[in-house]
């Protein structure tokens, strides 16, 4: 199979079929098999007269040859086939295979697990690269070691992601054949690029991880960093490709009103929601990844009494929490952009998400985000015990806590906006009865923005607690910082109350942008002012490891809440399509074409979260296993060789 020339093409198709399976080519075979599974539904209309082997052969051939000429030759093969203006299939209920249990539940669990692990293994290399770079720039080897350890504990995650991904693909093809056939038709050659990217990703993953110590210093380190960058590039590309399927289902593009493919693959990908989802998932992944590795550090911290190890894992946990919270702060803004684009695309879809059946879901979301913010803040406050300098800021903590709790309660105040008479009956009352002034959006916007501002304040005083500014203009800088906090919070309240309750709807909606802008001003100016003010500041002694055991539980709360929240947001993202596979184009006629209740969704999400925790435990266990060495039998019976 060593690169046969072009002349072999016909022969390869006709007579060399058996060779494909030879010599460890099974991944290609698998690929061809997966493809084969997808083809039958489209085959009838598009490729009459060609045998299965004939159709598969050129594809397999392309994969084997590799190299740059490959893709074009395959692309031509696809484009050469006539493309009739086929409408999207409209399967009837009998067209959906019945496996005895809910098909949607199966796909739900598997897809969500795939997303969890996908998010984790995309995020970890990203901040590992940043930490590694920090190590290079600061010449502090601790960073390098920690980055390596982060990679180690997530390494098995890549295999788990791939295995679950394969399972998901099989489940989808089996349970939703018509839908998948249509998606294949829309995205065409993109599927193969997607598969190819996994090989690229694996290559960089293994060279990056196993080359860590071989490429540790000098110029070689830069080679290593480049490998990390390419690993992230491949990962990110995989993510945005996969996102395009989800956003196509929500807001299809590149197809006609009946679903006939009219545009290129690129046009199908770049729907109105693609980039908002890309950004939202990108940021959320980082927060999620940080939270999960933080739990690892917390566990290691709690299970040792060795001061050196405790110091190390305390620092690791702190860094993880730092990553998680830092990524979490801009997330609502990305979410706002996404919601705004959804409203712009279809007001009806937006209202279904925010004001219809799903409105109650945002109460649960408030509980989850509240948990995340409270845990993150609590961890920061606990961490202030590491330095003596923190006494200067301790007095602020009780005010921050008070604001957090009040805002949290406001945010949770239920509001209802009614969709139909049936819901009125179900909910047992008309909207006005429950609807208090605290239950509607402006109040919630105030609460969320204030929570973000004070969380940033926690973060800022924590960062300041082990430093004393030495620049001459420090008092002026502080004066500005205090003024910015007070005025920004006043502005957030003013915008919410005045435009939210005393002007019309358009200004009400517009004022939330104003609130978000105020919050961003606080964050950006806080980072900028402190960046300059604490340049060359006097450092107070700080003691890693000197933190309460209780604080570590915040690091467990964080990933649990994050995981659950991701599951919940998956539920709403998928549900806003209501009874459509592809919104406005392909109806979902399966038995599961209704939006499940929030309770059912909650149970599903808990199931997936618990499964995820179990898999993550396995992943950590494997990571520890690699550092464990059984002592020689001749030695004493005592076990040794801890990591």
């Amino acid at each position, binding site marked *: 199979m060593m690169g046969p020339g072009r002349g072999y093409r016909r022969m390869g198709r006709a007579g060399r079929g058996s060779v494909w399976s030879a010599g460890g080519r099974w991944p290609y075979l698998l690929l061809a098999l997966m493809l084969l599974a997808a083809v039958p539904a489209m085959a009838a209309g598009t490729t009459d007269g060609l045998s299965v082997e004939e159709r598969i052969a050129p594809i397999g051939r392309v994969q084997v040859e590799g190299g740059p000429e490959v893709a074009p030759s395959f692309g031509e093969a696809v484009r050469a086939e006539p493309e009739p203006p086929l409408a999207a299939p409209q399967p009837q209920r009998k067209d959906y295979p019945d496996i005895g249990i809910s098909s949607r539940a199966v796909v739900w669990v598997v897809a969500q697990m795939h997303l969890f692990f996908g998010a984790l293994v995309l995020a970890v290399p990203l901040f590992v690269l940043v930490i590694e770079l920090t190590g290079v720039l600061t010449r502090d080897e601790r960073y390098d070691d920690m980055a390596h350890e982060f990679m180690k504990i997530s390494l098995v995650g890549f295999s788990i992601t791939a295995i679950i991904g394969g399972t998901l693909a099989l489940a989808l093809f089996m349970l939703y054949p018509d839908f998948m056939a249509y998606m294949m038709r829309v995205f065409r050659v993109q599927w193969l690029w997607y598969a190819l990217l996994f090989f690229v990703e694996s290559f960089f993953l293994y060279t990056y991880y196993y080359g860590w110590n071989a490429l540790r210093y000098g110029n070689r380190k830069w080679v290593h960093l480049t490998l990390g960058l390419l690993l992230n590039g491949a990962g990110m590309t995989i993510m945005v490709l996969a996102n395009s399927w989800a956003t196509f289902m929500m807001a299809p593009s590149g197809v006609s009103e009946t679903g006939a493919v009219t545009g290129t693959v690129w046009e199908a990908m770049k729907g109105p929601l693609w980039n908002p989802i890309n950004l939202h998932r990108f940021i959320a992944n980082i927060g999620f990844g940080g939270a999960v590795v933080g739990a690892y550090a917390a566990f290691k911290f709690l299970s040792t009494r060795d001061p050196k190890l405790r110091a190390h894992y305390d620092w690791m946990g702190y860094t993880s929490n730092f990553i998680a919270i830092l990524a979490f702060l801009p997330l609502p803004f990305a979410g706002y952009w996404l919601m705004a684009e959804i409203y712009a695309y279809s007001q009806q879809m937006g209202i279904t998400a925010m004001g219809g059946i799903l409105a109650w879901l945002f109460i649960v979301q408030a509980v989850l985000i509240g948990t995340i913010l409270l845990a993150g803040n609590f961890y920061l406050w606990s961490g202030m015990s590491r330095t003596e300098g923190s006494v200067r800021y301790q007095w602020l903590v009780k005010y921050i806590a008070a604001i957090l709790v009040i805002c949290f309660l406001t945010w949770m105040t239920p509001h209802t906006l009614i969709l139909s008479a049936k819901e009125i009956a179900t909910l047992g009352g008309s909207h006005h009865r429950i609807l208090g002034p605290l239950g509607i959006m402006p109040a919630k916007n105030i609460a969320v923005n204030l929570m973000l501002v004070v969380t940033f304040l926690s973060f800022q005083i924590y960062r300041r607690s082990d430093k*004393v*500014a*030495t*620049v*001459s203009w*420090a*008092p*002026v800088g*502080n*004066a*500005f910082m*205090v*003024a*910015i906090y*007070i*005025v*920004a919070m006043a*502005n957030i309240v003013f*915008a919410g109350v*005045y*435009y939210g309750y005393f*002007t*019309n709807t*358009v*200004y009400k909606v*517009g*004022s939330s*942008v*104003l609130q978000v*802008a*105020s919050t961003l*001003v606080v964050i950006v100016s806080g980072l900028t002012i402190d960046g300059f003010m604490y340049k060359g500041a006097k450092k107070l002694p700080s003691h890693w490891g000197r933190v309460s055991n209780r604080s570590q539980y915040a690091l467990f709360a964080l990933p649990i809440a994050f995981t659950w929240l991701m599951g919940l947001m998956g539920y709403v993202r998928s549900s806003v399509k209501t009874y459509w596979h592809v919104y406005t184009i392909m109806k979902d006629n399966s038995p599961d074409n209704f939006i499940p209740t929030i309770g059912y969704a909650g149970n599903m999400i808990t199931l997936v979260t618990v499964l995820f925790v179990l898999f993550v435990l396995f992943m950590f266990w494997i990571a520890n296993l690699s550092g464990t060495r059984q002592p020689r039998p001749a030695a004493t019976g005592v076990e040794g060789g801890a990591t």
Partner: protein
Amino acid sequence: MTGKAMGKGTLLAAFLLAFVVVVLFFYGLDHLVMGIQGLPLNPDLSPAG
């Protein structure tokens, strides 16, 4: 802190100045952010038009 070098009066002045500057900044921000959304405001921040 180095604030001692500045004296109480100067410190107060610095705080007042900072407040005025920041209030003006946010006032401008309100007009700007609402303006670019096509929602102009009157000088007293009430909706215009």
